[in-house]
């Protein structure tokens, strides 16, 4: 049996001030799976995602990507390239004067030369339908464009796992559908932290519910969403239109 692409074992984390955030989380994700991590605000979803590429260090248990431990060792930069993390606020991810520079930032850090990095950034922007805005600053983009741009800064490094934190926070229905189509077409392994059940239903095949830093449910998404009692108990609303 080959190791799962992402393996999280007995992961525990508490903040330096002692606030517990994660408690014995275990989760294995196979290549090509699309997993929704559901839960109300403060359930530990963002904290979990930030463990996938070593931004936060576990206080118990661990995370393995393609069988390699995520720790401060020399393999960390490789893991950070493999795990693409898209933050909740696109503004946190678009920090350079132009969009081009933002998108080329990852490849440049991976040692790609300026000419190739620029070429890859241009291709990436075109792929997401953002051609023509590369020279602009992020504050001149619309909310939807900014969300796509943040995604582009991560996709350009060709990650094998994409971890998205509340990707539809600032999108309307059409923007959401566009994102779903895009991600389904690309086929990266996905971990999507969200409380947007409509997004989860459209995008993912499996649902994991986090509550108080623990995994309280992990099953096929359709079955999970059909369990009204469970959704209600853990503060999740059922998807609109039902």
């Amino acid at each position, binding site marked *: 049996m080959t190791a799962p692409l992402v393996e999280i074992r007995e992961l525990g984390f508490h903040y330096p001030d002692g606030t517990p955030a994660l408690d014995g989380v275990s989760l294995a994700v196979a290549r090509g799976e699309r997993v929704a991590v559901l839960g109300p605000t403060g359930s530990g979803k963002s904290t979990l995602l930030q463990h996938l590429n070593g*931004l936060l260090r576990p206080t118990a248990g661990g995370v393995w990507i393609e069988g390699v431990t995520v720790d401060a060792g020399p393999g960390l930069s490789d893991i950070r390239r493999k795990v693409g993390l898209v933050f909740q606020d696109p503004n946190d991810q678009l920090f350079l004067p132009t969009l081009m520079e933002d998108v080329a930032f990852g490849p440049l850090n991976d040692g790609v030369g300026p000419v190739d990095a620029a070429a890859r950034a241009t291709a990436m922007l075109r792929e997401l339908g953002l051609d023509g805005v590369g020279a602009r600053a992020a504050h001149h983009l619309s909310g939807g464009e900014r969300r796509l741009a943040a995604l582009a800064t991560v996709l350009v490094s060709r990650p094998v796992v994409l971890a998205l934190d509340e990707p539809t926070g600032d999108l309307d229905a059409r923007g959401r559908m566009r994102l779903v189509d895009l991600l389904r077409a690309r086929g990266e392994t996905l971990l999507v932290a969200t409380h947007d059940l409509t997004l989860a239903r459209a995008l993912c095949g499996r649902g994991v519910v986090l509550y108080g830093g623990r995994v309280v449910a992990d099953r096929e998404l359709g079955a999970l969403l059909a369990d009204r009692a469970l959704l209600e108990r853990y503060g999740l609303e059922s998807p609109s239109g039902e």
Partner: protein
Amino acid sequence: MSFHHLDQFATVPSPVTAMPPVARLVGATSVAVGAATLPLGAWPAAAALGALVAAMTLLARVPVPLLLRRMSGPLAFVLLASAGLLVFVPGDPVLDLGWVAVTRPGVERFGFVLARAVVALSAAVLLVTTTEFPDLLDALRRLRLPRVVTTALSLAYRLLYLLMEELERLLRAARSRNAGAGAASRRRLAAGVAAAVLQRAFARAERTHRAMLARGYQGELATLTEWRWRAWMVAALATLLGLVLVTAVLARG
């Protein structure tokens, strides 16, 4: 002071905007420094440098009214600051205002300070009108400014827009609660808002830093842009620098 106009200028294709940003920066700086440091009374030299800026403005196809409008704010400040010269420079009084008198050397100095300021200012305004901030930053990087400074500026640029949005939101929220009546209350409000903005700036810096680390940041910001120098550009910059130098020497000779 507003800053939303800064990068809203469509760069008009012209010989000036074709030059690498570092050439534009060096050129404008040399004219500004040349004009600002003219010895008092060197009127012909000031006029010559002024003509040089005018020529560059025409070359860059920047509308003159726009240039003048953008100069007016800083110029008002210069006018205010230099008005004191009229009375503080001792000499023959030409206009007695009771307990102070406008003196002849005062008027001369006022006039010349103003002339120097206008020429230097117009060069600076021409630079920002024809150069977007990312290009300016690229020029500063090429001029070997400390890396800490250029990195801080790159990150500050985006952050500034975000902070200004938050600043406006905070002020609006405070006003909607009827805060800010009376100077003391306004002062408290402003200090509170500034403190809140500072905290948010640092909180965002921390999140941005995580986003940078997540994309492999190891402490160095690499640059993308490449500008090609052509022979005519080198010649143009050299000519400009030469003209400024000759003017400066003649003004002192």
